[in-house]
Structures are given as structure tokens and as C-alpha cells.
């Protein structure tokens, strides 16, 4: 018996050599081996074809020539500084929130620093191929602003930890300011909303419908659990009807049917109608996701709040919702990511957002047949935006998870881990 003791006294050191790992995970048995070989062959074929195309026959000049068009569409060139300024507002806010949320940890460990360096270098390299030196310089400035504001946010966050709860409000304010900037509501020369195009329109449509569908979705979720039958039924009908319709029909209806149905003296902008469609659509799905979170909050929580004399409004807003929303952050972010991608459907109803602008470029006889180049580029932008969102969500979850460990309810704890 005594001989077994030393064996278990130290945790076994894990063999992390690549060959051992590969042997275990890639060539475990004959089936695994087969899968590995087939995957490598397919992947290799796709990659070599793609790369050889990208470096030999692809003619990339279409991207730099139309870079501005794809990004901000037909936004007046002499007013572009307003877009830079509103980007600065967003970046500053982003850095600030990052700092406030990581007030108790290190902002950038070595890995983070290296990542940031690589990212900036890549950005400069890519931009150098695409645009002018001034834009590159401003982009670098924005990154410095981001990091700088992160340090500021961290310092302020340490002094005023309750600032964390005000961040959503700050963001709302930031969005309104940058919207006013881009629209030219603050500094003269307004640009009409219906003249937005390119990535600018994509981002605008996504952000506005995300921000607006959130409160609407939460209200619908609460309505679905209401004790008043009318409210409950209205919520259920709304949610189920919308979830039964494809987004594209809602968008078509918003563009074609709504103007016919409305009396002539009510004029609505095309973009506004599209935004309403996206928002109403997203809210129904959000409501279902939030409802899942509400159900995960144990009944004892409401009972404890009631026993303390808290009325239903206080109970919902201070006890139930915070726990429910935290539990469904990953689901909600997932939904927002798909909403972001769904804005590309706006192309079909005639908008020149990122994808639509790509079509416009391709329609130009000068760039005939450059589908591969343009679509790949657009795909990359979507990919970058979506990965940024899911990365941010994972960070947010981690921050909330470490700051507020929970025991109840178990299924929520399991997700946070």
C-alpha cells in the first residue's frame, strides 16, 4: 500500500508535445485518421486554390479604388471629418468602458499587449494598401485613444466603482452624440438619413435596431409573463406572429406596403421604415431569449423581494431582470450578431449598405467580373465585425462573472463557468 502513495503525491505533469497531442486527437483510431486525412486534403485544396487565385489572377485594384464608397458610401468627402469624430467618440467610450470593467484586473497583460501590437500593425498594413496616409494616421490615433481612455477609465473606475452601472446610459448618450455628428445635426450641413450607404448604413442599421429592440424585447418578455391576460395575450400574439414570418417579408412590407397603407400626408423615410422592420423582428426573438432568462430566476427570489415589501416594479427591475439578463448575455449577443448579418438583406429591398454597395461597384462596367474580390472583401469585414462582437461579449461575461460569483441558480452558474 505504501508504494502507491508517492505516485499520487504530485499531480501528473501533462505531456504537451505536439506529436503526442496529434496522436491522441487526430490519429486516435482508423476513423479519426481517415477524417484527419480527408479534412487536410479538402482544406489544402480549398486554400491553395483560393490563395493562388488571390495572388495571381485576382485584380485587387477594385478595392482601394472603391474603398471610400464601400465604407461610407456617398457621404460628402468634405464632411468626412464628422465620421472620424464620431468614431473617436465611440472608440473613446469603448476604451473607457474597457477600463472601468477591468478596474480590478490588469488592463493588458503581455499577451494582450502583443495582440494589440499585432492588430495595430495589421491594420496599418491593410490600410496602407487601401487608403491614404492621413486616414492611416487617424486610425492609429484612434487606437491610441482607445488604450488611453482605457487607462483613464481604469483609474476613474477604481475611485468610483459604481460607474459600471452607468455605462449603458453613457453608451446611449455616446450613440446619440455620434448620430448627431454624422447626420450633421450639431455642426451644420445635415446629411439625410436616406443618403446613408456603405458600411456606415450597415453599422447604423445594426446598432439602432439592436439598441431599440433590446428594451422592446425585454418589455415583451415581461408582458408574456404578465398577470393581466390582455397584455399577456398581446405579447404572445406579437411574438409568435413575428417569429412566424421571414425577415425578408417584413422588410418588403416595410418598404412597399407601409407607404401604401399610410395616409398620404405621413411621409416616412425608407431607412426609418427598414429600421422599424429590423427592430420589430429582432424584438420578438429577444423576448423569447429573455423569457428563458426570466424562467431561470428561482421563485424564492421574487418571494424574498415581496416579503421585504418591494412592489412588482421594484422586484422586477432590481431583482429579477438583472439576474435574468446576466444569464442570457451569450444568447443575446449571438442574436445581435445574426441581426448584424441580417442587415445584408437590406440589399434585396434596394439599399446600398455594405453588400448593396458591393453590388453597385460590381455593376460599374469598369469593374465587371470582380465578384470574387469584392465579395471576399465584404465577407472579411462582416467576419471582423462579428468576431469583435463575440470577443467583446466573452470579455463582458468574464468581467461580470468574476465580479459577481453566484451560487443560484445552478444552470446559470454552469453557463458562466
Amino acid at each position: 500500500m505504501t508504494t502507491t502513495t508517492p505516485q499520487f503525491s504530485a499531480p501528473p505533469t501533462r505531456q504537451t508535445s505536439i506529436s503526442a497531442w496529434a496522436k491522441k486527437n487526430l490519429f486516435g483510431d482508423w476513423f479519426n485518421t481517415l477524417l484527419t486525412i480527408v479534412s487536410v486534403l479538402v482544406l489544402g485544396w480549398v486554400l491553395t486554390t483560393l490563395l493562388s487565385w488571390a495572388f495571381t489572377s485576382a485584380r485587387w485594384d477594385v478595392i482601394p479604388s472603391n474603398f471610400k464608397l464601400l465604407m461610407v458610401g456617398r457621404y460628402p468627402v468634405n464632411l468626412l471629418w464628422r465620421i472620424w469624430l464620431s468614431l473617436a467618440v465611440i472608440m473613446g467610450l469603448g476604451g473607457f468602458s474597457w477600463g472601468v470593467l477591468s478596474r480590478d484586473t490588469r488592463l493588458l497583460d503581455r499577451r494582450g499587449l502583443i495582440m494589440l501590437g499585432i492588430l495595430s500593425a495589421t491594420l496599418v498594413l491593410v490600410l496602407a494598401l487601401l487608403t491614404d496616409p492621413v486616414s492611416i494616421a487617424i486610425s492609429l490615433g484612434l487606437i491610441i485613444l482607445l488604450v488611453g481612455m482605457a487607462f483613464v477609465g481604469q483609474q476613474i473606475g477604481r475611485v468610483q466603482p459604481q460607474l459600471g452601472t452607468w455605462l449603458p446610459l453613457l453608451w446611449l448618450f455616446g450613440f446619440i452624440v455620434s448620430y448627431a455628428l454624422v447626420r450633421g445635426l450639431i455642426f451644420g450641413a445635415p446629411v439625410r438619413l436616406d443618403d446613408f450607404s456603405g458600411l456606415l448604413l450597415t453599422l447604423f442599421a445594426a446598432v439602432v435596431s439592436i439598441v431599440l429592440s433590446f428594451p422592446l424585447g425585454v418589455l415583451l418578455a415581461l408582458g408574456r409573463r404578465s398577470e393581466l391576460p390582455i397584455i399577456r395575450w398581446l405579447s404572445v400574439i406579437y411574438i409568435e406572429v413575428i417569429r412566424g414570418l421571414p425577415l425578408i417579408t417584413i422588410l418588403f412590407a416595410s418598404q412597399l406596403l407601409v407607404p401604401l397603407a399610410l395616409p398620404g400626408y405621413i411621409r416616412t423615410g425608407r431607412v426609418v421604415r427598414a429600421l422599424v422592420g429590423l427592430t420589430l423582428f429582432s424584438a420578438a426573438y429577444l423576448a423569447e431569449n429573455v423569457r428563458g432568462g426570466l424562467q431561470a430566476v428561482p421563485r424564492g427570489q421574487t418571494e424574498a423581494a415581496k416579503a421585504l415589501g418591494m412592489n412588482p416594479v421594484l422586484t422586477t427591475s432590481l431583482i429579477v431582470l438583472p439576474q435574468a439578463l446576466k444569464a442570457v448575455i451569450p444568447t443575446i449577443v449571438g442574436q445581435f450578431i445574426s441581426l448584424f448579418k441580417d442587415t445584408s438583406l437590406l440589399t434585396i429591398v434596394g439599399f446600398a449598405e455594405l453588400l448593396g454597395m458591393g453590388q453597385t461597384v460590381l455593376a460599374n462596367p469598369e469593374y465587371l467580373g470582380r465578384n470574387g474580390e469584392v465579395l471576399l472583401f465584404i465577407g472579411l469585414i462582416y467576419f471582423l465585425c462579428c468576431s469583435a462582437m463575440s470577443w467583446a461579449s466573452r470579455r463582458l461575461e468574464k468581467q461580470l462573472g468574476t465580479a459577481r460569483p453566484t451560487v443560484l441558480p445552478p444552470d446559470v452558474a454552469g453557463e458562466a463557468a
Partner: protein
Amino acid sequence: MTQPQIETTDTKASAEPIITAKNVEKWYDNNFHVLKGVSLTVTKGEVVVVMGPSGSGKSTFIRTFNALEPYQKGSIEIDGIQLSHDLKNIDAIRREVGMVFQQFNLFPHLTVLQNVTLAPKWVRRWPKAKAEEVAMQLLERVGILNQANKFPGQLSGGQQQRVAIARALAMQPKVMLFDEPTSALDPEMVREVLDVMRTLASSGMTMVCVTHEVGFAREVADRVVLMADGLLVEEATPAEFFSNPKEERSKKFLSQILH
């Protein structure tokens, strides 16, 4: 069918009643008769322990005192406020009645201090400073002062239950209800919670406790009542109840928990 009320010859019997429940009847889902006419009067400063087999309606009964459970017949009056059938005076009564649950039910997304100050701030509308001062005093009383900024999930069960007691006390209730406060605890933590309850009792708080802690009942209770099948079967001083129960049902119950 109502049980004849048994008069106790307690020193406090002449004191002012704070809870008067008369012939309370309740049905769950319109068919399960869970309370079949229960009457109980608790006077100011009295500690009443409610015992009885599982499913006899103890929790349901004390949860009618703060309107967590509606009831269909009878009447309940708390500190002169009538708890009417249509639940009119709920808010007024809930402010007077604190409750401690078997599963603690602390708010996991708030710190200990925030748990305790939440209701005073939002319901009593106290300024933050006052709410925190009171909370700190209470946390000190239950021995959790140094954990004020932790989250409930970081505390042991016994500590959590003591925070729950402090949270209920922060509303400065006139009556405290305890529903099996130690049943979910590991044995070694039962004592720390009972000690807090003992101190609370000796400070003159009116308490109604559902508990099977015989030691606590013997030492602290002014009266023990036994519930079975939705009825109040016996009502006696602890000495009498544990050594010389009158009812057959009580004898059977005691033989099960004392063995």
C-alpha cells in the same frame, strides 16, 4: 370543523395581541384543502414555535401572515391592520413582517451589504447613509460585519442565513417569521443561526418559527403549537408539550422526532 382554542396560562397571555388569525382556511388550486380553519393569537414579544409533520401546512400557514399565500376564509390581523381577502393592505403588512426562508433566498447579484440595504432604500426610502449605518449595525449583530462586501455565493450556508436575518431585520419589522431556517444547513452551522435567533428573541422580538429544533423550542419558545393535516392540534408551553403532550397526534409526532 375548528379546534377548540386552548387557553395558555402564560405571563404574556394578557398582553396585547400582534397577530390574530381566526379560522383561516385555504385551498390550493380550488380543490386541495390545505388549511382547514386555523386560529392562532400571538402577543407582542412572544416566541411561538410551530411544529408538525411534513405537508401539514405549516409553511402555508405562516406565509399567509405576510400575504405570500392568499387565503379564502377567516381573518388575519397584524398589528391592527386587517389582511383582507382581496389583499388590500399587503404593502403595509409586509413592512411590519419580516421573513426568513429555508433556502435563504439572498439576492446573488448583490453584495451582502446591498442585500441588506436594498429594501430600506427603495421601500422605506431611507437615505443611503442611514440604510448603510443600520445595515452595518445589523451585520455586526449577526457576526458578518467583515463579509459586508462579499457576494452571497462566497459565504457558507450559516453565514448566508444570518445575512438573510439581517436583511429582514433591516426593515425594522414588528414580527419575524422563520420557515425552517436551519433545515438547509449542515449540522455544524445550525448553532450559529440558532444563536442569532436566540439573541433576537431575548431582545423582545415577536417571532413565529417553524422549526424542528427541539432544544431551541424548549429554551426560547413561549408556546409550541402542533399542526397536522391543516389543523392546529395542540398548543402548549414547551415544557408541557415535550414532556406531557395531551393529544394522540402530538405523541405520535414527538415519538418520531425525538426517538
